[in-house]
């Protein structure tokens, strides 16, 4: 298993290209927010259309900004996926053997989830700046602090469970990020709707749409995350001799699972619906982030595959 240096270099170059494209998308989405028309208050569920009689059918200039942002985001996501594909090919293995690769993949899942939502629920397109700006910031941080040379996997990671456990963990975490961002925006937007100050927040999708997007995404992510936990336990049983041992990573995954279980319950409980439930989702988001960063970088445990010294 040798590393192909030219592919590894291509991977690093694609990383910079992805960051550059995403930055352009942030500019485009910001322009949409700055120059955009204020959408009519969303009385219609996104997608059903029709009732917004005042809106002309042809796309306005601001919509063109939004579409441009979306197009550039798609290109960025392609380059972003290329980072992982070329890395995997360079080392001839799945490209999630260290924290740089894992974090890059999580961010990619977030971007793709946003793109899927934006095509299915057009109103969600308007939150582009709020998704892509954190994406750019995290990618820059990943490139600066987590970068690891392309290399082979350590012995413990050479198992088919790597594909199962880590893929589902990446998928679950990436979707939770989108859900968390939607809940943060919901909290901002619902306060703005109540107080009605005319800030740019009024150009966001309606609070109810944001809340629904947050919930749907979390509902989709939760079983995946549960599956990641079970697959991890099965792998731990054959790699470390026990299926659960309160290793820091395991503990924090447990904590985040419990918080998200709380969110799903809270959203259907009188007294917790709306803003309190959204806060729970934001806490879950923070826990997942903490698990990704603190547990890999600061604490020592069996999951210390970060490739960082």
């Amino acid at each position, binding site marked *: 298993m040798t590393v192909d240096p030219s592919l590894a270099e291509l991977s690093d170059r694609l990383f910079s290209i992805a960051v550059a494209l995403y930055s352009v998308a942030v500019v485009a989405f910001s322009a949409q927010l700055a120059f955009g028309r204020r959408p009519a208050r969303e009385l219609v*569920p996104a997608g059903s259309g029709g009732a917004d009689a005042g809106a002309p059918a042809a796309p306005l200039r601001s919509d063109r900004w939004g579409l441009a942002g979306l197009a550039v985001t798609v290109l960025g996501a392609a380059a972003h996926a290329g980072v992982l594909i070329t890395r995997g090919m360079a080392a001839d293995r799945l490209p999630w053997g260290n924290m740089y690769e894992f974090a890059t993949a999580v961010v990619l899942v977030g971007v793709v989830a946003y793109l899927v939502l934006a095509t299915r629920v057009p109103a969600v397109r308007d939150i582009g700046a709020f998704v892509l700006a954190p994406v750019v910031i995290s990618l820059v941080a990943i490139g600066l602090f987590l970068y690891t040379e392309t290399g082979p*996997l*350590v012995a413990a990671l050479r198992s088919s469970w790597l594909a199962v456990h880590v893929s589902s963990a990446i998928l679950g975490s990436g979707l939770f990020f989108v859900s968390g961002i939607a809940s943060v925006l919901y909290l901002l937007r619902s306060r703005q709707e109540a107080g009605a100050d005319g800030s740019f927040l009024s150009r966001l999708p309606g609070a109810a749409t944001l809340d629904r997007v947050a919930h749907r995404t979390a509902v989709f992510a939760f*079983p995946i995350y549960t599956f990641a936990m079970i697959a991890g336990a099965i792998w731990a049983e054959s790699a470390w*001799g026990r299926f659960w041992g309160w290793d820091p990573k395991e503990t924090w995954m447990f904590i985040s699972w419990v918080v998200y279980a*709380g969110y799903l*319950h809270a959203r259907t409980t009188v007294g917790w619906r709306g803003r309190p439930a959204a806060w729970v989702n934001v806490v879950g988001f923070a826990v997942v982030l903490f698990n990704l960063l603190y547990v890999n970088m600061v604490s020592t*445990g069996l999951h210390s595959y970060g490739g960082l010294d």
Partner: protein
Amino acid sequence: MSTVAPPRPAAAPPPPARPSLGARAWGLWLRWWRRLTAMRTAIVLLFLLALAAIPGSLLPQRSLNQNAVRQYFADHPTLAPVLDRLYAFDVFGSPWFAAVYLLLFVSLIGCVVPRLAEHVRALRAAPPPAPRRLQRLPDSGELATALPGPAVLDVVEEELRVRRFRVVRRDGAASTPPGPAASGPELSAEKGFWKESGNLLFHLSLVALLLGLAGGKLWGYEGSILVTEGQGFCNSFQQYDTHSSGALVDSGDLSPLCIDLEDFRAEYEEDLTAASYTADIRYGGPGEEGEPATIGVNDPLRLDGDRVYVTGHGYAPRFTVTLPDGTAFTDVSAPFLPSDQTTMSSEGALKLPDLGAGVEDQLALEGFFAPTGLMQGGVLTSIDPRPLNPQVAVLAYQGYLGLDSGLPQSVYSLDASQIERGRLAEVGRANLAVGETLTLPDGTAVTFTGVSQFAALQFSHDPGQVWVLAAAIAVLVGLLALLFLRRERFFARVGPAPDGGGTVLTVGSLTRGGGESATRFAELTGQLRAALDERSPTPSAPPSGGAAPEPEVSPRDR
């Protein structure tokens, strides 16, 4: 746990007189029980559980790393004992952690068991009668047709049965209080019981999972031991370097199994990343020849209820000690613990307390082992984890080791207090390559003859883990059903059209879960209309309300 609180009496009627003590106690118990099993309590308990787990990851835990706990005690001599009294170093076995999860599970059971009974009842009961005003349902609409009323309901029933609804027809006037809105025969249909079944399966499987975990903890044990190539061990607590066992484990009743390590191999990539560790072992009952097997990382030996793992490895340098009188101890060795996993530089000690009759002094070697040694500025370092050029830097001591003093001491180092007290004196030091000899002042020759590998093996017995796996899979299946299936209720009622010709069909539906109900409802009513048109002699006239049923959008979906 209930998403909709079952109807409960708002308040007990004021007691007529002082109720008996028993009744009051029962009332109090009932009040607390309801409070405990309420959904808000469950949410709060979930949060408490998450909070309670946090110190377990931030503070060192005895179950994970005893040394880290000892270090914490040394670093925080005043704080550590206080924390220890609060079980801060055994969080996951602490009474308060157990209190939180047991309360949560009691709350869960208290919520799920009544729902289970209700669900079983609902499975057997007919779908509930249609509400009086179908237009008030989240999704509703009206269709006009030329067909007579009963024929319309026949068509609707057929269409619904094809879609696997359970359908019941009622004579509306008889089953509901008479009134203007509740006239005419009606139909109730229901499907999607699997959603609630999934919900119950999810929660009950969590209970099963907890029971499996508890059983595994009570009847499970594990032991760890370092085994050098050519040596072996048998499954007994006396032999293990460290072991832990559940409260109900009888140490005389462990599975009779012995393991011999025949060969150990560590393979490395070009950049010295460890690629694989494999151990060739033989296993079998005591005294048996044993079956050969190869185990490694991610590939344990699995026997009925027992598992044997390779959890680590290292080097055990071999020495031949020749006393001045010619007595030779050939190839004695001791495992040296790796202090750096990337270069496998290791530290350890070889103790020879009994050199034969007439030799008073005990001998010990303490030192540093480098699988690929390199002298840098007079200091031996290791540059490669593979044994390409094994070298040792040893200090030789003679005197009294203190092994029989009654105080436990590490096998990997000498007792420093014996050296301080001068009972153990350094008598020589050297850096040796394989074949080189250090001769001590009294004429004793210590030859570095080579190196063996040792494997850290772990023997685990957990009778609960298959149970836990089955429960975890059931949790996931229940979760998928709970989150992605939907329960649908569909109601229809026919009445004469206001203008006298034909029939007006009023339909409404109530959906739980599954997202966008409006589009699905519109689709279903569209299909009903098509089916009605097919049967009716003339195409149905547009209903008075509009061309198509206007699905009213539920507030949830806005």
